[in-house]
């Protein structure tokens, strides 16, 4: 019998060998929500999925969340498995180099791994403070720096949809193709990721070119699109539960170069009238030099030298956490500036007030200004900042004077949230899909003392360039060898749009507003010998007069003046005067230039 058993085993092995196929778990998940679909190759399957997306998609709602479970796995548990010692060490080394790093002891959890476009992608997750952060590492593609992005746990606790998108359209690698006329090369892969509620078995990203299935595991999703076309942008997401329920989740589109998506329409609710006007507010404890919060050393802000010390002596500085359970920290300092700092902006010297924000992940920014300008006309200063363009969250942060007892933010979704405010400092993360927002400050008697509204800073309202219609209109070379390329094109409304790329300086751009505002001749003359500006529409030509006595007449192209000086003009002192002329050649504006 034993001999037969062995013979049988051998012959049966020859008949049907053990496959070396490892399977496609994601395909199983997709089938689980779309029964009776037959397996084909992955690409075919993806196309099949594409065909059914859009059917029976439910609106986002609390009922959906109840059906598929919640985010308890992320709120109270630890999805995934511990990262390898090597991955953990790489994270810690990177974290140690970051000024706005994560707390020591932060442990990564490995969530999803996949291979695409010749690269190995690994998605990690971890909680820190009141945030959930995801970190994508990429091996084998360059550039391919890790991407880390976070979402507040508040979003998970209150989520009425089964997925929370954290980062979209993170490009890695460069395709081996010729750059387009703007110098852009599409990435070898584009990655998007986020977390999902219990019970979500499949996720698809809508990019405008059909749905792209994502990998789903450990309460997270990761979509990697190999060789995406240039400008491919995620627009929405469909999360599918095991019982077939499909829920569409909005995505805040990421910008591409100077092209920003349209701002969300409408406006946030909330008060529109100021009840009490407050001028000349202050932060009493700071100017009394009370040791609130932490010292720079205690907060670790002195590791690379406090930025404010560049060009000045720190007279007094403390680091405050606006939200005790949050990660954001703000350093407030009084600095005696003797000369212009190397990289900060304050030009005036003397005692200045500086603030610097450190928020997740790697958001580090600050500013300085004369002490007297702080709260000169408003009791609250605000800003909205972020790091990666594809991040779905922005940090709302700022300072409130002693006159402000509490802050609230009203979101476009109708939500009304208390803003953490401690020792005159506030910071909180806001989902980009929930802009525009309205921040309201109240005094101790409940009177409105400050109102500020804002759109998502990664969007643009008003005219936008018509897609694909921008063309090179003029190119000049300065005596210093800088190449400036002007591209113009039609706008969705108004007089058109422009983009200016200067070699070695990056690019800028905009669209002409329906009505010109500001001076009629707002030209800039750079030290490299470039004259640039967007004059009023009535200016048909500009006469440039140089200090060597030469005169040049130039006409705006697409509403933009772009001119390069000659070496002689530049060496003799450059531009002295610009005169704007109308269609009849009559002077309508004049602008002088200092040496």
């Amino acid at each position, binding site marked *: *019998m034993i001999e*037969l*058993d062995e*013979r*049988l*085993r051998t*012959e*049966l092995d*020859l*008949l*049907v*060998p*053990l*496959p*070396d*196929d*490892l*399977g*496609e*778990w994601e*395909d*199983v*998940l997709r*089938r*689980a929500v779309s*029964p*009776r679909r*037959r*397996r084909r190759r992955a690409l075919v399957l993806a196309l099949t999925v594409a065909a059914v997306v859009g059917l029976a998609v439910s609106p986002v709602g609390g009922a959906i969340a109840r059906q598929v*479970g919640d985010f*308890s*796995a992320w709120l109270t*548990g630890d*999805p995934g498995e511990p990262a390898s010692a090597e991955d953990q060490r790489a994270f810690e080394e990177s974290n140690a180099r970051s000024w706005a790093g994560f707390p020591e002891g932060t442990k990564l959890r490995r969530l999803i791994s996949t291979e695409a476009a010749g690269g190995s992608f690994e998605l990690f997750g971890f909680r820190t403070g009141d945030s959930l952060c995801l970190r994508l590492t990429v091996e084998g593609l360059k550039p391919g720096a890790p991407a880390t992005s976070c979402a507040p746990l508040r979003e998970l606790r209150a989520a009425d949809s089964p997925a929370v998108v954290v980062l979209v359209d993170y490009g890695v690698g460069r395709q081996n193709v010729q750059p387009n006329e703007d110098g852009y090369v599409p990435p070898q892969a584009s990655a998007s990721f986020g977390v999902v509620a*219990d*019970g979500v*078995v499949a996720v698809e990203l809508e990019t405008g070119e059909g749905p792209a299935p994502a990998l789903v*595991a450990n*309460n997270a999703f990761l979509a990697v699109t190999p060789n995406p076309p240039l400008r491919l942008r995620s627009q929405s997401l469909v999360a599918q539960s*095991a*019982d077939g329920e499909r829920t569409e989740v909005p995505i805040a589109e990421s910008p591409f170069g100077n092209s920003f998506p349209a701002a969300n329409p409408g406006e946030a609710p909330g008060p529109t009238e100021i009840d009490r006007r407050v001028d000349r507010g202050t932060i009493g404890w700071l100017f009394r030099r009370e040791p609130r919060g932490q010292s720079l050393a205690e907060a670790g802000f002195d590791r690379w030298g406090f930025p404010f010390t560049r060009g000045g002596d720190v007279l007094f500085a403390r680091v405050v956490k606006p939200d005790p359970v949050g990660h954001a920290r703000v350093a407030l300092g009084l600095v005696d500036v003797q000369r212009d700092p190397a990289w900060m902006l304050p030009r005036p010297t003397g005692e200045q007030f500086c603030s610097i924000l450190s928020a997740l992940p790697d958001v580090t920014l600050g500013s300085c200004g004369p002490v007297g300008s702080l709260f000169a006309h408003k009791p609250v200063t605000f800003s909205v900042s972020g790091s990666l363009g594809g991040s779905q969250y922005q940090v709302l942060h700022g300072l409130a004077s002693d006159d402000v007892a509490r802050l609230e933010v009203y979101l476009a979704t109708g939500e009304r949230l208390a803003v953490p405010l401690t020792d005159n400092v506030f910071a909180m993360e806001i989902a980009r899909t929930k802009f525009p927002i309205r921040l309201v400050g109240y005094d101790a008697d409940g009177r409105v003392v400050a109102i500020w509204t804002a759109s998502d800073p990664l969007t643009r309202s008003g005219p936008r360039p018509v897609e694909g219609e921008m063309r090179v209109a003029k190119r000049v070379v300065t005596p210093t060898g800088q190449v400036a390329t002007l591209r113009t094109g039609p706008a969705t409304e108004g007089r058109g749009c422009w983009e200016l790329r200067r070699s070695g300086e990056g690019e800028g751009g905009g669209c002409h507003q329906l009505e010109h505002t500001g001076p009629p001749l707002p030209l800039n003359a750079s030290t490299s010998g470039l004259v640039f500006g967007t004059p009023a529409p009535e200016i048909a030509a500009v006469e440039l007069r140089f200090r060597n006595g030469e005169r040049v007449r130039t006409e705006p192209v697409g509403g933009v003046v772009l001119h390069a000086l000659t070496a002689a003009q530049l060496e003799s002192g450059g531009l002295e005067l610009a005169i704007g002329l109308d269609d009849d050649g009559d002077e309508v504006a004049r602008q002088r230039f200092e040496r």
Partner: protein
Amino acid sequence: MSSDARRLAEIERLYRARFPHFVRVAWAVTGDREQALDAVQEAFAGAIRSRRSLRRDDALEPWVWRAVVNASRDRRRAQPELPEVFAEPEASSNGRVEVSGALRLAIAELPERQRLAVFLRYYADLDYRGIADVLGIETGTVSATLNAAHRSLRQTLQEVER
């Protein structure tokens, strides 16, 4: 982690740990590799859909094996002809029927229960208890079924080598 998520994780673990074995059995039953892959994927998808109806103490693996076998049999029945793997063998150039070909035919001619028991025994490495769970029969019946299959297959091997 909720019980639902835990059950989903168990299904995924089983899939990743035993996928080749599931495919192998399905391949043997259907006679077609693509059909086998499809059957396994569908069986696991069904397991996900039905996971909430499984009791906590229900053994997952036998349940999935049953689903794989049933899905494979469905596909096999849908085919009008004998599966390719177990089709009638051709004689080799010297006129001698090769062992594998004869065995293939002998397996194809086994009663279905015996054939499935052989597949689960040799391709899935299931013990008698596991085979009994999958086929819904007593352990003793598994023993008798495999013995009967062995007799037929041994006879075939002996005839071929004679």
